[in-house]
């Protein structure tokens, strides 16, 4: 098991390392640089050149990368060129907001999807099932930016019930959390339904029913427990989804999370922040996969030997 753990960890470390190179080089090779954003367009040429020199942008890119890695190794995570905050400070603020939004969306997604999936399975081919599955198809099919606009139109503009954007009160959280949760809810509902149906066909269910157990107990205690195993094991992968969608949702709702900051820092060519937060997001996705790999390995010795 230790060898397996070591192999998976080394593999993940390699991915993070390669990602850091790819992120660094793609930012440097993208057109433009921080002078275009942090200096006024009318600033004199001498001042622009001096600023480039100050940032080390005139050095070869590999040299800039080595300096960057050297600083990282010494604990210098970088400082924003835009507002001078350290990346650690930014992570505390924006990361916390992302965590709040992400966890709310995740919780919302499961709180809605699991009961809905159970209902659809138990009432298979009846109207609750058709309604739930119709909703799930809509949830998967509607682009989240469009859903965001529709919700803002109804709940903010017409009904004046919820704020259209901003942070960080509970009522400002509702719309972005719904939009972020929408697709995950739809997918999870379908997954719970199919998993439930599979379990309901098992022999042990027939046996339990034959023993005279009430139906709610058969479903709620025995079937559901087994049906949720694939749902839970895939929840790690949902993190990658959430991070991807958060970039869009946080930007639309001006929710200052890590995704919002990443988009903003790329637009502003705030290299230290864009590099750091890209790497943080990569790290989270890699860690989620690592945990999933490890748990599979623990559960199944065949995977460990592969």
């Amino acid at each position, binding site marked *: 098991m230790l060898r397996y753990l070591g192999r998976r960890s080394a593999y993940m470390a390699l991915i993070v390392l390669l990602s850091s190179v790819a992120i660094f080089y793609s930012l440097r090779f993208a057109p433009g640089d921080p002078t275009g954003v942090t200096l006024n367009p009318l600033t004199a040429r001498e001042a622009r050149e001096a600023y480039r020199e100050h940032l080390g942008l005139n050095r070869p890119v590999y040299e800039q990368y080595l300096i960057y890695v050297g600083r990282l190794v010494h604990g210098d995570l970088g400082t924003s060129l835009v507002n001078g*905050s350290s990346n650690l400070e930014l992570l505390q603020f924006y990361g916390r907001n992302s965590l709040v939004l992400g966890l709310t969306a995740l919780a919302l997604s499961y709180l809605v999807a699991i009961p809905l999936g159970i209902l659809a399975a138990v009432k298979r081919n009846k109207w609750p099932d058709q309604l739930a599955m119709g909703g799930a198809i809509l949830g998967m099919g509607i682009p989240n930016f469009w859903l965001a606009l529709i919700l803002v139109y109804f709940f903010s503009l017409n009904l004046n019930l919820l704020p259209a954007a901003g942070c960080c009160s509970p009522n400002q959280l509702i719309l972005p959390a719904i939009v972020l949760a929408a697709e995950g809810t739809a997918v999870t509902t379908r997954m719970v339904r199919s998993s439930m149906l599979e379990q309901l066909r098992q022999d042990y269910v027939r046996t339990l029913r034959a023993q005279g157990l009430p139906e709610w107990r058969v479903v709620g205690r025995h079937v559901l427990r087994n049906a949720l195993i694939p749902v839970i094991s895939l929840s790690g992968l949902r993190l990658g989804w959430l991070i991807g969608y958060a970039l869009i949702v946080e930007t639309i709702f001006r929710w200052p999370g890590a995704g919002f900051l990443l988009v903003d820092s790329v*637009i502003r060519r705030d290299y230290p922040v864009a590099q750091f937060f890209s790497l943080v997001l990569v790290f989270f996705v890699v860690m989620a996969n690592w945990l999933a790999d490890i748990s599979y390995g623990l559960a199944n010795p065949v995977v460990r030997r592969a």
Partner: protein
Amino acid sequence: MGASTIDKLVESYVTGGVSRRDFMRRALALGLSMSAIGELLAACSNQTQSGQSTGTPKRGGTLREGYDLDFSRMDPINTTWYDPGFFALYDALVINDTNGAYVPQLAEKWTFSADGKTATFNIRKGAQFHSGRPVTAGAIKEVFDTIAQPNSGSPLATLWVGPVASTEAPDDNTLVIHLKHPYYDLLNVVKTGYWRVVNIQTRQKLGDQYGKQVIDGSGPFTFVDWVPGDHVSVKRWENYSGSIVPFFQNKGKPYLDGIKWIAILEASQRAIQIENGQIDTLRGPAYQDVPRLMKNSNLNVIQLKSDWSGYVAGLNFTRTNLDFHDKRVRQAVSYAIDRTAIVKSLFFGYAEPMYGPVPTADKYYTKQVEQFNQFNLSKGKQLMADAGWKPGSDGILTKNGVKHQFSMVIQAESVNQQLSSAVQAQLKALGMDVKIEAYDRGTYFNKLFSQPDSFLFFYQWPVPIDVVTLFINSAALSPNGPNWSMANIPEVDQAVAAWQTASNEKELADGAAKIQTVVADQLPIIPIVARQSFWVHRKNVHGWQPLKWDLYPYYNDVWLD
């Protein structure tokens, strides 16, 4: 009685320059009947602001102001753009009042010598920076001397370095600026955000971190925080020594506990947020939302004729294969642009065609420019034919085997994209094949300095002529300066020199008129449209007064009901 006189009176009323009583008195003097005055006042009712606030000011509360841009570093000397916070955190030597007259802020009074080569400012006593250092003539001299340094990063330093020989502070209350030649434009320069007075000692101590987490100005509010892309907030400075600005009703500490400016970059969101009370005031709602906002009984919409800005295009003079150095070709391009149609279709009528380089609301505007650049496609085609360009089988103009195809660099932003598409379609009718290249801000400005075929640019500056001189002057050729067209026209340079050496207001106005007519004729840049400016506030906000003569309101008088 000219319609323009009435227009000016209405605008003064809308912008708070005259009270309701003064408005009626002057309107009667102009010969308007009471019923006509009544109708005018009714029409203005949704546009007037609460500058003339009613009731007793209340202390407390935080003003939440929606802002249509993201925030820049709050260092006046080296910043991308000066945002509204500058007007709360910093003071200037002088500022404009609601009628455009210069009034004291840090300078109690000022004089120019008879030969126009020495300007003397008497600095008020008692003002201090947030850090406690007194604001003396010496402290202001440090600011101006820093701007003059080659690497200062000050965006319009050339407006200072060219004419200013030296500065002197013989005592704490006297600042003397020695000029190389008469330079009456000096006041227009020092009033702007980039010349706001910062404590240079603090700035030097913090280096390039200044203006990001620490701000040391002398304005009535102190800095709290800046979350990029989201907000900037400030709080009332309890040690504020008070203001001497004559048109501020409140000479003491501000009424507000604080101000929070919220960046709302998505245009459609701005109106929604002020409608549902998430923000109290707003700059720049989307034009399509303006009629809806005007009907909202909880809101006041203030409409200014322009926001000292303009959309202009530039054709690179070094593209001799496309004949952009030939005045006829530039004029042909200008004749092919139907500015009126653009105003109607893209700006919902909330803009005006520009025939010269500055908007009509500018105090130096001359109507002489209107004889140029009126839409006339057939004249444009004739000029191209005169220059030797003939339509090919595909309709694209051709000369010596070269097709008239070129790229236009624009900033990837919705108005720029729509405007460039309109220009592209209109030039297609002339026989030019334009390829639009849209870049995000970081890339766009670098592209401008890499000598593109052509570009579209949006400028905004409280004294438009000042910034226009930089786009057209051969002394500012790219990449050393922002003359991205690479225009080198002696007549233009002479007109700019006349403006820059004006020794009194009349010479300044004459110089401005000359620049406008020369630019309208020679087209080193091609003016297109100037947009109107909209400000909105909820009716519980009092004393909030967008200024016609500068980019943002001051917050000394603002209070919340």
